[in-house]
């Protein structure tokens, strides 16, 4: 139901709604997994109805305790994290958090994680039957766990395999596959996921990084390496989103260092159907609402009626 220019324009201004795999979002601004808790943590700080959707923290079937501290470290315009998939488990999420989220008029996407393929399938099957979940985001790209997870994003054949299996395990829900930037050519992984039945791609997860305390000579994170996020990685994320958009026909959701409406616009212009705001939530809890408002202002200033006029509109030099 992609709106066309013949749609009646609402009186209030530009149309910001987008659709991903049959699910409609009131605007293309979502919050990224692991940076917005289970959503409700942010209710005191912004109107959750004002954003397109919430991607909740990566969930496994059983709760996961996560890595010992220190888990986070700030770097130049970025941060490293090695949380290690700490989560309350899918059942607790559905029992304790989902009812609260249902009070808001926004979309809920559940990011899923696992150490083994079977664990992914179990949580995907479980969530398939939960009303109030609008899509699954398959996280095959988290760098911060000792085993599992990440290796599905080292070879496109593994990406294909896990995507196809999760697709079967959760036939009701649109399946988004979240790709790692720590690869030679993201297009190969994008195509593998598309061929295996992914409905959309989330691009990118964190870059693997490291920091060292030169006085103690120890890594700043106990896990040694961690995922780099924040404004520092935006140029890399934008390039990969642009590449992925060239490679596949399914929608791409842009992620990486987005902190302003301008940042979001860069990803939309590069071809992203929607964006997710991550690290910026930490230092500006209301940022996602502000970005959604900013998109409307930009459209008005540039006399754009529908956000689709922007998506994929990158021009070249004459």
């Amino acid at each position, binding site marked *: 139901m992609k709106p066309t220019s013949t749609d009646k324009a609402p009186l209030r201004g530009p149309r910001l709604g987008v659709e991903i795999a049959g699910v409609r979002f009131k605007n293309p601004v979502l919050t990224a997994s692991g940076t917005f*808790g289970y959503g409700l943590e942010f209710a005191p700080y912004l109107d959750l109805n004002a954003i397109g959707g919430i991607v909740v923290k990566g969930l496994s079937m059983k709760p996961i305790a996560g890595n010992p*501290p220190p888990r*986070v470290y700030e770097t130049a315009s*970025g941060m490293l994290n090695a949380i290690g998939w700490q989560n309350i488990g899918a059942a607790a999420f559905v029992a304790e958090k989902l009812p609260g989220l249902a009070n808001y008029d926004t979309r809920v996407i559940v990011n899923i994680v696992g150490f083994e393929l079977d664990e992914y399938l179990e949580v995907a099957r479980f969530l398939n039957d939960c009303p109030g979940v609008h899509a699954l985001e398959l996280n095959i790209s988290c760098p911060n766990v000792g085993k599992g997870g990440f290796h599905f994003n080292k070879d496109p054949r593994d990406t294909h395999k896990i995507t196809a299996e999760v697709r079967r395990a959760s036939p009701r829900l649109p399946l988004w596959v979240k790709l790692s930037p720590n690869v030679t050519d993201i297009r190969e992984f994008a195509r593998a996921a598309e061929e295996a039945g992914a409905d959309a791609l989330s691009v990118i997860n964190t870059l693997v990084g490291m920091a060292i305390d030169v006085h103690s000579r120890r890594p700043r994170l106990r896990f040694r390496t961690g995922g780099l996020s924040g404004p520092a990685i935006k140029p890399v994320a934008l390039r990969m989103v642009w590449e992925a958009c060239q490679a596949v026909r399914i929608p791409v959701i842009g992620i990486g260092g987005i902190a302003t409406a301008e940042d979001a616009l860069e990803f939309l212009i590069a071809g992203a159907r929607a964006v997710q705001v991550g690290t910026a939530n930490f*230092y500006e*809890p209301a940022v996602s609402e502000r970005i959604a408002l900013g998109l409307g202002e930009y459209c008005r200033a540039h006399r754009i009626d529908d956000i689709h006029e922007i998506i994929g509109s990158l021009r070249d030099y004459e």
Partner: protein
Amino acid sequence: MLDRKVKIKEIRDLGAGNHLLVITSPEQARLVRPGQFVMLKCVEDTGGNPLLRRPFTIFNIHRNARSGKPAGLELLVKEAGAGTRRLVMARPGQVLDCLGPQGQGFHLPPDLSSRVATACLVAGGVGIAPLLLLAESLLALRIRPILFYGGATAADLVLRESFERLGIDIIYCTEDASHGERGLVTGPLEQFLRIHPRKDTRLYACGPWGMMRGVHELAVGYELQCEVSLEARMGCGLGACLGCVVASEASEGRSYPLVCQDGPVMNSRLVRWDIAPI
């Protein structure tokens, strides 16, 4: 629970890198419980460096001189790196992003005095920050606070007047004996506990990890309850990033409580002291 743009009212240099930062924020000031903290950054740094906000304990509630009503917050900021440097170099009038008050403060039920007669407050350096509001609350509950305040040298023992004004017993110590006794603060504390072996004594500690660990061990040795105000690197300060955990002795699934949400004040027996969070 509130995210507000607040103005700096005053910055006082206390020496040795310490500064008292007074901000205007009546709304936030009204909500404060002893032991809570705020997340701060200069508004113009948004998106720049430092990227993340920094946590600071609420040292005191700033009150309107005439009405006595809560008007703002007093924070003790010690320069440690780039983030604290930006804050202490700010000027009155400058605007900060201020999230808070956040976290669980000290456990202060109305009937606390039925179990606790004496409270040993143990501070190392800027660890003094949560103890003023605590001391006042204890006095209001008619519990007797004794402050053990240690630092490397006299200059680290900041804001002493605020405590001396309360008329409570204070034992100072410094490693170089420049003020009070020589040595670590756990020395006089242990002496006190030895001389006063009463079960209705409770310990409250804030300072470097090793110091709090030492206080915890005394608490275990003397079979006393002990609350510690912990530090961890924080991404968000509001329970979303899961970055600020401390390792805990608690049961499975809760083995990593959040300092920003389950703390910063925690029962010292819930903490795994072999895994420092920073």
